Protein backbone atom coordinates (compact mmCIF):
# COMPACT_ATOMS: atom_id res chain seq x y z
CA UNK A 1 0.00 0.00 0.00
CA UNK A 2 1.23 3.48 -0.80
CA UNK A 3 0.75 6.47 1.46
CA UNK A 4 1.17 10.15 0.90
CA UNK A 5 4.44 11.40 2.16
CA UNK A 6 4.00 14.21 4.64
CA UNK A 7 6.20 16.34 2.41
CA UNK A 8 3.61 16.32 -0.40
CA UNK A 9 0.88 17.45 1.93
CA UNK A 10 3.01 20.06 3.61
CA UNK A 11 4.13 21.44 0.24
CA UNK A 12 0.51 21.79 -0.84
CA UNK A 13 -0.53 23.46 2.41
CA UNK A 14 2.41 25.85 2.42
CA UNK A 15 1.74 26.89 -1.18
CA UNK A 16 -1.87 27.55 -0.18
CA UNK A 17 -0.72 29.68 2.72
CA UNK A 18 1.75 31.59 0.55
CA UNK A 19 -0.93 32.32 -2.03
CA UNK A 20 -3.35 33.44 0.65
CA UNK A 21 -0.73 35.85 1.96
CA UNK A 22 -0.23 37.31 -1.53
CA UNK A 23 -3.99 37.74 -1.85
CA UNK A 24 -4.07 39.69 1.39
CA UNK A 25 -1.10 41.83 0.42
CA UNK A 26 -2.51 42.70 -2.98
CA UNK A 27 -5.95 43.24 -1.47
CA UNK A 28 -7.69 41.28 -4.21
CA UNK A 29 -11.47 41.31 -4.27
CA UNK A 30 -13.75 38.33 -4.04
CA UNK A 31 -15.41 36.84 -7.05
CA UNK A 32 -18.23 34.31 -7.33
CA UNK A 33 -17.78 31.46 -9.74
CA UNK A 34 -20.64 29.09 -10.43
CA UNK A 35 -19.59 25.59 -11.33
CA UNK A 36 -22.60 23.98 -12.89
CA UNK A 37 -25.54 23.34 -13.05
CA UNK A 38 -24.50 22.12 -16.49
CA UNK A 39 -20.90 21.16 -15.97
CA UNK A 40 -19.47 17.82 -17.06
CA UNK A 41 -17.77 17.36 -13.71
CA UNK A 42 -21.07 17.45 -11.85
CA UNK A 43 -22.49 14.23 -13.36
CA UNK A 44 -25.83 15.91 -13.86
CA UNK A 45 -27.10 19.18 -12.56
CA UNK A 46 -25.31 20.12 -9.39
CA UNK A 47 -24.40 23.75 -8.88
CA UNK A 48 -21.47 24.71 -6.75
CA UNK A 49 -21.21 28.39 -5.92
CA UNK A 50 -17.57 29.15 -5.20
CA UNK A 51 -16.36 32.42 -3.74
CA UNK A 52 -12.87 32.90 -5.09
CA UNK A 53 -10.02 35.01 -3.87
CA UNK A 54 -7.48 34.92 -6.65
CA UNK A 55 -6.99 31.28 -7.49
CA UNK A 56 -8.23 30.02 -4.16
CA UNK A 57 -11.70 29.02 -3.07
CA UNK A 58 -12.67 30.69 0.17
CA UNK A 59 -16.17 29.25 0.31
CA UNK A 60 -17.89 26.61 -1.77
CA UNK A 61 -21.54 25.78 -1.38
CA UNK A 62 -23.22 22.90 -3.19
CA UNK A 63 -26.75 23.69 -4.31
CA UNK A 64 -28.84 20.67 -5.02
CA UNK A 65 -32.40 20.20 -6.11
CA UNK A 66 -32.13 20.81 -9.85
CA UNK A 67 -33.07 17.22 -10.48
CA UNK A 68 -35.47 16.67 -7.61
CA UNK A 69 -38.13 14.21 -8.75
CA UNK A 70 -39.99 13.65 -5.51
CA UNK A 71 -39.54 9.91 -5.25
CA UNK A 72 -40.43 9.77 -1.58
CA UNK A 73 -43.79 11.33 -2.36
CA UNK A 74 -44.34 9.32 -5.53
CA UNK A 75 -43.81 6.08 -3.63
CA UNK A 76 -46.78 6.94 -1.43
CA UNK A 77 -49.24 6.74 -4.32
CA UNK A 78 -47.88 3.51 -5.75
CA UNK A 79 -48.06 -0.13 -4.81
CA UNK A 80 -44.96 -1.98 -3.65
CA UNK A 81 -44.20 -3.64 -7.02
CA UNK A 82 -44.62 -0.29 -8.75
CA UNK A 83 -42.23 1.39 -6.29
CA UNK A 84 -39.30 -0.75 -7.39
CA UNK A 85 -39.49 0.66 -10.91
CA UNK A 86 -39.08 4.14 -9.46
CA UNK A 87 -36.34 3.12 -7.07
CA UNK A 88 -34.30 1.77 -9.99
CA UNK A 89 -33.90 5.31 -11.17
CA UNK A 90 -32.35 6.80 -8.03
CA UNK A 91 -28.76 5.76 -8.67
CA UNK A 92 -28.98 4.99 -12.35
CA UNK A 93 -25.57 3.40 -12.69
CA UNK A 94 -26.11 0.72 -10.07
CA UNK A 95 -29.84 0.20 -10.31
CA UNK A 96 -30.16 -3.27 -8.91
CA UNK A 97 -28.41 -2.26 -5.69
CA UNK A 98 -31.16 0.32 -5.10
CA UNK A 99 -33.93 -2.25 -5.14
CA UNK A 100 -32.42 -4.59 -2.61
CA UNK A 101 -32.74 -2.55 0.63
CA UNK A 102 -36.30 -1.52 -0.24
CA UNK A 103 -37.35 -5.10 -0.88
CA UNK A 104 -35.53 -6.29 2.24
CA UNK A 105 -37.33 -3.69 4.36
CA UNK A 106 -40.71 -4.73 2.92
CA UNK A 107 -39.79 -8.38 3.50
CA UNK A 108 -38.94 -7.66 7.11
CA UNK A 109 -42.35 -6.06 7.61
CA UNK A 110 -44.08 -9.01 5.97
CA UNK A 111 -41.90 -11.46 7.90
CA UNK A 112 -41.03 -13.46 4.82
CA UNK A 113 -37.54 -14.44 3.87
CA UNK A 114 -36.29 -15.10 0.37
CA UNK A 115 -35.01 -18.64 -0.26
CA UNK A 116 -31.21 -19.07 -0.21
CA UNK A 117 -30.92 -19.35 -3.98
CA UNK A 118 -32.67 -16.01 -4.42
CA UNK A 119 -30.41 -14.41 -1.85
CA UNK A 120 -27.26 -15.63 -3.58
CA UNK A 121 -28.42 -14.42 -6.99
CA UNK A 122 -29.38 -11.11 -5.39
CA UNK A 123 -25.89 -10.76 -3.97
CA UNK A 124 -24.32 -11.59 -7.33
CA UNK A 125 -26.42 -8.99 -9.12
CA UNK A 126 -25.69 -6.50 -6.34
CA UNK A 127 -21.96 -6.92 -6.86
CA UNK A 128 -22.34 -6.82 -10.65
CA UNK A 129 -24.10 -3.49 -10.38
CA UNK A 130 -21.32 -2.29 -8.09
CA UNK A 131 -18.74 -3.23 -10.72
CA UNK A 132 -20.74 -1.54 -13.49
CA UNK A 133 -21.11 1.58 -11.38
CA UNK A 134 -17.59 1.95 -10.06
CA UNK A 135 -15.99 0.98 -13.39
CA UNK A 136 -17.40 4.18 -14.82
CA UNK A 137 -15.89 6.17 -11.95
CA UNK A 138 -12.49 4.60 -12.55
CA UNK A 139 -12.52 5.93 -16.10
CA UNK A 140 -14.35 9.16 -15.36
CA UNK A 141 -11.80 10.27 -12.79
CA UNK A 142 -9.29 10.46 -15.64
CA UNK A 143 -11.58 12.77 -17.62
CA UNK A 144 -11.80 15.16 -14.68
CA UNK A 145 -8.01 15.45 -14.80
CA UNK A 146 -7.77 15.71 -18.58
CA UNK A 147 -6.97 12.12 -19.52
CA UNK A 148 -9.52 11.02 -22.08
CA UNK A 149 -8.44 7.44 -22.77
CA UNK A 150 -9.54 5.77 -19.50
CA UNK A 151 -13.19 6.68 -19.92
CA UNK A 152 -13.39 4.93 -23.28
CA UNK A 153 -11.87 1.82 -21.77
CA UNK A 154 -14.38 2.08 -18.93
CA UNK A 155 -17.35 2.36 -21.27
CA UNK A 156 -16.02 -0.54 -23.33
CA UNK A 157 -15.59 -2.91 -20.41
CA UNK A 158 -18.65 -1.82 -18.45
CA UNK A 159 -20.68 -3.00 -21.43
CA UNK A 160 -19.72 -6.61 -20.70
CA UNK A 161 -21.17 -6.35 -17.21
CA UNK A 162 -24.30 -4.60 -18.46
CA UNK A 163 -24.77 -7.36 -21.04
CA UNK A 164 -24.68 -9.94 -18.26
CA UNK A 165 -27.22 -7.97 -16.23
CA UNK A 166 -29.40 -7.69 -19.32
CA UNK A 167 -29.12 -11.39 -20.08
CA UNK A 168 -30.60 -12.32 -16.71
CA UNK A 169 -32.96 -9.44 -15.92
CA UNK A 170 -33.91 -8.08 -19.33
CA UNK A 171 -32.90 -4.51 -18.59
CA UNK A 172 -29.47 -2.98 -18.95
CA UNK A 173 -30.00 -0.09 -16.58
CA UNK A 174 -33.31 -0.69 -14.89
CA UNK A 175 -33.48 -4.38 -14.04
CA UNK A 176 -36.64 -4.30 -11.87
CA UNK A 177 -35.81 -7.88 -11.02
CA UNK A 178 -36.21 -8.02 -7.27
CA UNK A 179 -39.55 -9.06 -5.85
CA UNK A 180 -40.86 -9.24 -2.32
CA UNK A 181 -40.10 -12.83 -1.36
CA UNK A 182 -37.53 -13.60 -4.01
CA UNK A 183 -36.68 -12.84 -7.59
CA UNK A 184 -38.65 -12.54 -10.79
CA UNK A 185 -36.89 -15.32 -12.67
CA UNK A 186 -34.05 -17.79 -12.42
CA UNK A 187 -30.67 -17.81 -14.14
CA UNK A 188 -30.71 -18.84 -17.82
CA UNK A 189 -28.42 -21.67 -18.85
CA UNK A 190 -24.86 -20.69 -19.66
CA UNK A 191 -25.02 -17.44 -17.72
CA UNK A 192 -22.62 -18.54 -15.00
CA UNK A 193 -19.78 -19.39 -17.40
CA UNK A 194 -20.26 -16.15 -19.31
CA UNK A 195 -20.20 -14.13 -16.12
CA UNK A 196 -17.01 -15.80 -15.02
CA UNK A 197 -15.29 -14.88 -18.29
CA UNK A 198 -16.59 -11.31 -17.88
CA UNK A 199 -15.08 -11.17 -14.41
CA UNK A 200 -11.71 -12.08 -15.91
CA UNK A 201 -12.15 -9.20 -18.36
CA UNK A 202 -13.01 -6.82 -15.54
CA UNK A 203 -9.89 -7.81 -13.63
CA UNK A 204 -7.89 -7.01 -16.77
CA UNK A 205 -9.70 -3.69 -16.88
CA UNK A 206 -8.69 -2.96 -13.28
CA UNK A 207 -5.07 -3.76 -14.14
CA UNK A 208 -5.28 -1.43 -17.14
CA UNK A 209 -6.64 1.36 -15.00
CA UNK A 210 -3.89 0.80 -12.48
CA UNK A 211 -1.29 1.04 -15.23
CA UNK A 212 -2.93 4.04 -16.88
CA UNK A 213 -3.76 6.21 -13.90
CA UNK A 214 -2.44 5.00 -10.56
CA UNK A 215 1.13 4.84 -11.83
CA UNK A 216 0.77 8.05 -13.83
CA UNK A 217 2.89 10.89 -12.47
CA UNK A 218 0.47 13.60 -13.58
CA UNK A 219 -2.43 11.79 -11.95
CA UNK A 220 -0.50 11.42 -8.72
CA UNK A 221 0.59 15.05 -8.76
CA UNK A 222 -3.01 16.17 -9.23
CA UNK A 223 -4.52 13.81 -6.64
CA UNK A 224 -2.00 13.26 -3.86
CA UNK A 225 -2.72 15.46 -0.89
CA UNK A 226 -5.66 17.17 -2.63
CA UNK A 227 -8.93 17.23 -0.72
CA UNK A 228 -7.77 15.51 2.44
CA UNK A 229 -10.69 14.48 4.64
CA UNK A 230 -9.64 13.19 8.07
CA UNK A 231 -11.52 10.29 9.57
CA UNK A 232 -13.31 12.31 12.27
CA UNK A 233 -14.54 14.90 9.77
CA UNK A 234 -15.75 12.18 7.43
CA UNK A 235 -17.67 10.55 10.26
CA UNK A 236 -19.13 13.85 11.44
CA UNK A 237 -20.47 14.64 7.99
CA UNK A 238 -22.09 11.21 7.75
CA UNK A 239 -20.01 10.05 4.84
CA UNK A 240 -20.15 6.41 3.94
CA UNK A 241 -18.88 3.89 1.47
CA UNK A 242 -15.52 4.10 -0.24
CA UNK A 243 -15.16 7.79 0.69
CA UNK A 244 -15.18 6.85 4.35
CA UNK A 245 -12.91 3.84 3.87
CA UNK A 246 -10.44 6.03 2.02
CA UNK A 247 -10.20 8.12 5.21
CA UNK A 248 -9.04 5.08 7.10
CA UNK A 249 -12.30 4.05 8.76
CA UNK A 250 -12.79 0.30 8.51
CA UNK A 251 -16.54 0.33 8.03
CA UNK A 252 -18.47 -1.75 5.55
CA UNK A 253 -22.16 -2.58 5.94
CA UNK A 254 -21.77 -5.73 3.91
CA UNK A 255 -19.63 -7.13 6.69
CA UNK A 256 -20.84 -5.18 9.74
CA UNK A 257 -24.61 -5.27 9.28
CA UNK A 258 -25.38 -7.88 6.70
CA UNK A 259 -29.15 -7.78 6.22
CA UNK A 260 -29.38 -11.41 5.19
CA UNK A 261 -27.58 -11.59 1.87
CA UNK A 262 -24.81 -14.03 1.06
CA UNK A 263 -21.79 -11.90 1.91
CA UNK A 264 -21.16 -13.68 5.19
CA UNK A 265 -20.95 -17.03 3.42
CA UNK A 266 -17.67 -16.31 1.64
CA UNK A 267 -14.26 -14.84 2.42
CA UNK A 268 -13.41 -11.38 1.21
CA UNK A 269 -11.73 -8.33 2.60
CA UNK A 270 -12.55 -4.67 3.08
CA UNK A 271 -10.01 -2.25 1.62
CA UNK A 272 -9.09 0.91 3.45
CA UNK A 273 -6.51 3.62 2.88
CA UNK A 274 -5.20 5.88 5.64
CA UNK A 275 -4.64 9.06 3.59
CA UNK A 276 -8.12 10.41 2.91
CA UNK A 277 -7.09 12.36 -0.19
CA UNK A 278 -8.39 12.08 -3.75
CA UNK A 279 -5.80 9.49 -4.62
CA UNK A 280 -6.86 7.30 -1.70
CA UNK A 281 -10.50 7.48 -2.79
CA UNK A 282 -9.55 6.37 -6.28
CA UNK A 283 -7.29 3.63 -4.99
CA UNK A 284 -9.91 2.23 -2.59
CA UNK A 285 -12.52 2.08 -5.34
CA UNK A 286 -10.11 0.37 -7.68
CA UNK A 287 -9.34 -2.30 -5.10
CA UNK A 288 -13.03 -2.67 -4.30
CA UNK A 289 -13.91 -3.29 -7.92
CA UNK A 290 -11.27 -5.97 -8.13
CA UNK A 291 -12.49 -7.46 -4.85
CA UNK A 292 -16.07 -7.44 -6.16
CA UNK A 293 -15.04 -9.54 -9.16
CA UNK A 294 -13.60 -12.12 -6.76
CA UNK A 295 -16.77 -11.98 -4.66
CA UNK A 296 -18.86 -12.68 -7.75
CA UNK A 297 -16.58 -15.55 -8.74
CA UNK A 298 -16.87 -17.16 -5.33
CA UNK A 299 -20.63 -16.66 -5.19
CA UNK A 300 -21.10 -18.16 -8.66
CA UNK A 301 -19.38 -21.33 -7.50
CA UNK A 302 -21.71 -21.83 -4.57
CA UNK A 303 -25.23 -20.98 -5.70
CA UNK A 304 -27.49 -23.34 -3.76
CA UNK A 305 -30.30 -25.11 -5.58
CA UNK A 306 -33.92 -24.59 -4.71
CA UNK A 307 -36.80 -22.26 -5.43
CA UNK A 308 -36.28 -18.56 -6.05
CA UNK A 309 -39.57 -17.32 -4.65
CA UNK A 310 -40.96 -17.68 -1.14
CA UNK A 311 -44.70 -18.09 -0.66
CA UNK A 312 -46.23 -14.63 -0.87
CA UNK A 313 -49.78 -13.66 -1.78
CA UNK A 314 -50.41 -12.53 -5.33
CA UNK A 315 -51.63 -9.12 -4.20
CA UNK A 316 -49.05 -7.84 -1.76
CA UNK A 317 -50.27 -6.05 1.33
CA UNK A 318 -47.53 -5.19 3.77
CA UNK A 319 -48.69 -5.28 7.41
CA UNK A 320 -48.59 -2.12 9.48
CA UNK A 321 -45.24 -1.27 10.98
CA UNK A 322 -41.94 0.45 10.41
CA UNK A 323 -38.65 -0.92 9.17
CA UNK A 324 -35.29 0.51 8.19
CA UNK A 325 -32.79 -1.49 6.16
CA UNK A 326 -29.59 -0.15 4.72
CA UNK A 327 -26.99 -1.84 2.55
CA UNK A 328 -23.57 -0.94 1.25
CA UNK A 329 -24.39 0.36 -2.21
CA UNK A 330 -21.72 1.29 -4.77
CA UNK A 331 -21.72 4.84 -3.42
CA UNK A 332 -22.18 4.15 0.28
CA UNK A 333 -24.91 3.47 2.76
CA UNK A 334 -28.33 3.44 1.14
CA UNK A 335 -31.31 2.84 3.34
CA UNK A 336 -35.08 2.87 3.17
CA UNK A 337 -37.30 3.66 6.12
CA UNK A 338 -40.72 2.28 5.27
CA UNK A 339 -43.82 3.15 7.27
CA UNK A 340 -46.67 0.88 6.33
CA UNK A 341 -50.31 1.06 7.36
CA UNK A 342 -51.28 -2.30 5.95
CA UNK A 343 -52.27 -1.07 2.52
CA UNK A 344 -51.16 -1.85 -1.01
CA UNK A 345 -48.51 0.83 -0.97
CA UNK A 346 -46.23 2.36 1.64
CA UNK A 347 -47.59 5.18 3.79
CA UNK A 348 -44.26 6.97 3.86
CA UNK A 349 -40.81 6.15 2.55
CA UNK A 350 -37.66 7.91 3.67
CA UNK A 351 -34.76 7.30 1.36
CA UNK A 352 -31.30 7.71 2.80
CA UNK A 353 -28.95 8.10 -0.14
CA UNK A 354 -25.16 8.07 0.16
CA UNK A 355 -24.35 10.85 -2.29
CA UNK A 356 -26.37 13.42 -0.37
CA UNK A 357 -24.23 12.96 2.72
CA UNK A 358 -21.02 12.54 0.78
CA UNK A 359 -21.50 15.83 -1.03
CA UNK A 360 -22.26 17.71 2.17
CA UNK A 361 -18.56 17.66 3.05
CA UNK A 362 -17.82 19.94 0.07
CA UNK A 363 -17.94 23.27 2.00
CA UNK A 364 -15.48 21.88 4.52
CA UNK A 365 -13.03 20.24 2.16
CA UNK A 366 -12.98 22.99 -0.45
CA UNK A 367 -11.82 25.79 1.80
CA UNK A 368 -8.54 27.07 0.43
CA UNK A 369 -8.14 24.71 -2.53
CA UNK A 370 -7.30 25.93 -6.01
CA UNK A 371 -9.88 26.05 -8.78
CA UNK A 372 -8.61 23.05 -10.78
CA UNK A 373 -8.59 20.99 -7.59
CA UNK A 374 -12.31 21.66 -7.16
CA UNK A 375 -12.92 19.36 -10.11
CA UNK A 376 -10.51 16.76 -8.77
CA UNK A 377 -12.25 16.69 -5.41
CA UNK A 378 -15.72 16.58 -6.98
CA UNK A 379 -14.65 13.76 -9.23
CA UNK A 380 -13.06 11.76 -6.45
CA UNK A 381 -16.03 12.16 -4.09
CA UNK A 382 -18.06 10.39 -6.81
CA UNK A 383 -21.68 11.30 -6.51
CA UNK A 384 -24.57 10.67 -8.84
CA UNK A 385 -27.13 13.42 -9.14
CA UNK A 386 -30.09 11.10 -9.14
CA UNK A 387 -28.77 9.82 -5.86
CA UNK A 388 -28.47 13.30 -4.35
CA UNK A 389 -31.79 14.74 -5.43
CA UNK A 390 -33.95 11.63 -5.85
Amino acid at each position, binding site marked *: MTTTSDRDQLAYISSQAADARVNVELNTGDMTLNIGPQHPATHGTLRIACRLDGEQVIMAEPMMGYMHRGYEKLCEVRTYPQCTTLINRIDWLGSFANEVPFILAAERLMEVEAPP*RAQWIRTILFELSRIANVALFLGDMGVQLGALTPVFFAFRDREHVLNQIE*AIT*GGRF*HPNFDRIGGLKDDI*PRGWIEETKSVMVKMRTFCDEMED*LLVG*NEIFQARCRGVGVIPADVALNYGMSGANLRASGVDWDLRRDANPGLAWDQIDWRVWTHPDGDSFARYWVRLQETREATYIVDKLLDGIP*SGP*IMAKVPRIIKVPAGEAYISTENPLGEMGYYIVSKGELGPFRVKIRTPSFNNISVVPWVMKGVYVPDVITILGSLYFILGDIDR
Partner: protein
Amino acid sequence: MPQLPGLIKGLGVTAKTAVRTLFPKRGWKTLIPAPQKGAVTVQYPHEKEAPPDRARGVIALHEENCTACMLCSRSCPDWCIYIEGHKVKAPPRRAGGKARSVNMLDRFDIDYALCMYCGICVEVCPFDALFWTPEYEYSEPRIADLLHDKIRLGEWMDTVPDFLEYESGSEQKVRKVPR
Protein backbone atom coordinates in the same frame (compact mmCIF):
# COMPACT_ATOMS: atom_id res chain seq x y z
CA MET B 1 10.53 15.47 -10.10
CA PRO B 2 8.88 13.47 -12.85
CA GLN B 3 9.54 9.79 -13.09
CA LEU B 4 9.15 8.19 -16.47
CA PRO B 5 8.11 4.56 -15.79
CA GLY B 6 4.53 5.47 -14.87
CA LEU B 7 3.99 7.46 -18.04
CA ILE B 8 5.54 4.81 -20.27
CA LYS B 9 3.39 2.10 -18.69
CA GLY B 10 0.25 4.13 -19.40
CA LEU B 11 1.27 4.75 -22.99
CA GLY B 12 1.93 1.03 -23.33
CA VAL B 13 -1.62 0.18 -22.27
CA THR B 14 -3.07 2.58 -24.82
CA ALA B 15 -0.77 1.29 -27.55
CA LYS B 16 -1.70 -2.31 -26.81
CA THR B 17 -5.39 -1.53 -27.21
CA ALA B 18 -4.71 0.39 -30.42
CA VAL B 19 -2.79 -2.54 -31.88
CA ARG B 20 -5.55 -4.95 -30.84
CA THR B 21 -8.12 -2.75 -32.56
CA LEU B 22 -6.11 -2.26 -35.73
CA PHE B 23 -5.02 -5.88 -36.11
CA PRO B 24 -7.80 -8.12 -34.80
CA LYS B 25 -7.24 -11.86 -34.68
CA ARG B 26 -8.21 -13.03 -38.16
CA GLY B 27 -5.94 -15.99 -38.88
CA TRP B 28 -3.29 -15.39 -41.52
CA LYS B 29 -4.70 -11.95 -42.36
CA THR B 30 -3.53 -10.67 -38.97
CA LEU B 31 -1.10 -8.16 -40.39
CA ILE B 32 -3.67 -6.38 -42.59
CA PRO B 33 -5.23 -3.52 -40.59
CA ALA B 34 -8.98 -3.87 -40.10
CA PRO B 35 -10.07 -1.17 -37.62
CA GLN B 36 -13.76 -1.83 -38.28
CA LYS B 37 -13.47 -5.49 -37.31
CA GLY B 38 -11.43 -4.77 -34.21
CA ALA B 39 -13.70 -2.04 -32.93
CA VAL B 40 -16.04 -2.87 -30.08
CA THR B 41 -18.80 -0.58 -31.36
CA VAL B 42 -21.58 -2.00 -33.52
CA GLN B 43 -21.87 -0.16 -36.87
CA TYR B 44 -25.60 0.10 -36.33
CA PRO B 45 -27.45 0.67 -39.59
CA HIS B 46 -25.13 -1.72 -41.41
CA GLU B 47 -25.03 -4.42 -38.78
CA LYS B 48 -27.65 -5.21 -36.17
CA GLU B 49 -27.07 -5.66 -32.51
CA ALA B 50 -28.38 -8.93 -31.08
CA PRO B 51 -29.96 -8.29 -27.68
CA PRO B 52 -30.32 -11.26 -25.31
CA ASP B 53 -33.57 -13.21 -25.42
CA ARG B 54 -34.81 -11.77 -22.17
CA ALA B 55 -34.23 -8.17 -23.27
CA ARG B 56 -37.21 -5.96 -22.67
CA GLY B 57 -37.57 -4.46 -26.13
CA VAL B 58 -41.28 -4.23 -26.77
CA ILE B 59 -44.43 -5.91 -25.49
CA ALA B 60 -46.23 -8.30 -27.81
CA LEU B 61 -49.88 -9.28 -27.44
CA HIS B 62 -51.33 -12.73 -28.08
CA GLU B 63 -54.86 -11.61 -28.74
CA GLU B 64 -56.63 -14.96 -28.41
CA ASN B 65 -55.53 -15.27 -24.79
CA CYS B 66 -56.61 -11.80 -23.72
CA THR B 67 -59.91 -11.64 -21.85
CA ALA B 68 -59.95 -7.88 -21.32
CA CYS B 69 -59.68 -8.39 -17.57
CA MET B 70 -57.91 -5.03 -17.19
CA LEU B 71 -55.35 -6.36 -14.70
CA CYS B 72 -52.41 -5.10 -16.75
CA SER B 73 -54.02 -1.74 -17.30
CA ARG B 74 -54.71 -1.27 -13.59
CA SER B 75 -51.27 -2.35 -12.42
CA CYS B 76 -49.39 -0.18 -14.90
CA PRO B 77 -47.54 2.58 -13.04
CA ASP B 78 -47.93 4.95 -16.00
CA TRP B 79 -51.43 3.97 -17.04
CA CYS B 80 -50.27 3.62 -20.60
CA ILE B 81 -52.43 0.59 -21.53
CA TYR B 82 -55.87 1.31 -22.93
CA ILE B 83 -58.33 -1.57 -23.07
CA GLU B 84 -61.92 -1.64 -24.24
CA GLY B 85 -64.00 -4.74 -24.56
CA HIS B 86 -67.56 -6.02 -24.73
CA LYS B 87 -69.33 -9.25 -23.89
CA VAL B 88 -70.73 -11.56 -26.53
CA LYS B 89 -72.71 -14.78 -26.27
CA ALA B 90 -70.68 -17.72 -27.42
CA PRO B 91 -72.07 -21.17 -28.25
CA PRO B 92 -71.91 -23.61 -25.35
CA ARG B 93 -68.86 -25.84 -24.98
CA ARG B 94 -70.92 -29.04 -24.76
CA ALA B 95 -74.10 -29.78 -26.67
CA GLY B 96 -77.14 -28.83 -24.58
CA GLY B 97 -75.13 -26.61 -22.24
CA LYS B 98 -75.78 -22.99 -21.41
CA ALA B 99 -74.59 -20.26 -23.74
CA ARG B 100 -71.40 -18.68 -22.41
CA SER B 101 -70.64 -15.00 -22.30
CA VAL B 102 -67.15 -14.22 -23.57
CA ASN B 103 -65.17 -10.99 -23.34
CA MET B 104 -64.27 -9.67 -26.75
CA LEU B 105 -61.33 -7.32 -27.08
CA ASP B 106 -62.15 -4.16 -29.03
CA ARG B 107 -59.14 -2.08 -28.30
CA PHE B 108 -55.75 -2.84 -26.79
CA ASP B 109 -53.34 0.07 -27.14
CA ILE B 110 -50.01 0.58 -25.46
CA ASP B 111 -48.57 4.07 -25.51
CA TYR B 112 -44.84 3.47 -25.80
CA ALA B 113 -44.20 7.15 -25.29
CA LEU B 114 -45.31 6.66 -21.68
CA CYS B 115 -44.16 3.09 -21.09
CA MET B 116 -41.34 2.67 -18.55
CA TYR B 117 -40.56 -0.90 -19.69
CA CYS B 118 -40.94 -2.16 -16.14
CA GLY B 119 -42.66 -5.39 -17.15
CA ILE B 120 -45.34 -5.37 -14.46
CA CYS B 121 -48.12 -5.87 -17.03
CA VAL B 122 -46.40 -8.94 -18.49
CA GLU B 123 -45.97 -10.34 -15.01
CA VAL B 124 -49.51 -9.82 -13.73
CA CYS B 125 -51.20 -11.23 -16.84
CA PRO B 126 -52.85 -14.47 -15.62
CA PHE B 127 -53.73 -15.73 -19.12
CA ASP B 128 -50.31 -15.52 -20.86
CA ALA B 129 -51.37 -12.87 -23.31
CA LEU B 130 -48.45 -10.45 -22.99
CA PHE B 131 -44.82 -11.24 -23.80
CA TRP B 132 -41.56 -9.39 -24.02
CA THR B 133 -39.64 -9.47 -27.26
CA PRO B 134 -36.13 -8.10 -27.87
CA GLU B 135 -37.36 -6.24 -30.96
CA TYR B 136 -36.22 -2.62 -30.77
CA GLU B 137 -36.68 -0.99 -34.18
CA TYR B 138 -39.99 0.78 -33.81
CA SER B 139 -39.09 4.42 -33.47
CA GLU B 140 -41.46 6.93 -35.02
CA PRO B 141 -40.97 10.48 -36.24
CA ARG B 142 -43.99 11.70 -34.28
CA ILE B 143 -44.53 10.96 -30.62
CA ALA B 144 -48.25 10.29 -31.13
CA ASP B 145 -47.41 7.45 -33.53
CA LEU B 146 -45.91 5.50 -30.64
CA LEU B 147 -49.43 4.51 -29.55
CA HIS B 148 -49.58 1.01 -31.00
CA ASP B 149 -52.82 -0.92 -31.42
CA LYS B 150 -53.53 -4.60 -31.00
CA ILE B 151 -52.77 -5.46 -34.63
CA ARG B 152 -49.26 -4.03 -34.38
CA LEU B 153 -48.75 -5.65 -30.97
CA GLY B 154 -49.92 -8.96 -32.44
CA GLU B 155 -47.39 -8.73 -35.27
CA TRP B 156 -44.61 -8.59 -32.70
CA MET B 157 -45.78 -11.95 -31.38
CA ASP B 158 -43.76 -13.59 -34.19
CA THR B 159 -40.53 -12.16 -32.79
CA VAL B 160 -41.04 -13.51 -29.25
CA PRO B 161 -38.21 -15.98 -28.52
CA ASP B 162 -38.80 -19.19 -26.62
CA PHE B 163 -38.21 -19.01 -22.89
CA LEU B 164 -34.67 -19.95 -21.99
CA GLU B 165 -33.69 -23.14 -20.22
CA TYR B 166 -32.62 -22.65 -16.63
CA GLU B 167 -29.24 -23.25 -15.07
CA SER B 168 -28.91 -26.48 -13.11
CA GLY B 169 -30.24 -26.35 -9.55
CA SER B 170 -33.29 -24.38 -10.56
CA GLU B 171 -36.77 -25.56 -9.66
CA GLN B 172 -38.53 -23.22 -12.06
CA LYS B 173 -40.53 -24.71 -14.92
CA VAL B 174 -39.75 -23.42 -18.40
CA ARG B 175 -42.88 -21.77 -19.76
CA LYS B 176 -44.12 -22.15 -23.31
CA VAL B 177 -44.90 -19.31 -25.69
CA PRO B 178 -48.27 -19.80 -27.42
CA ARG B 179 -47.84 -19.70 -31.18
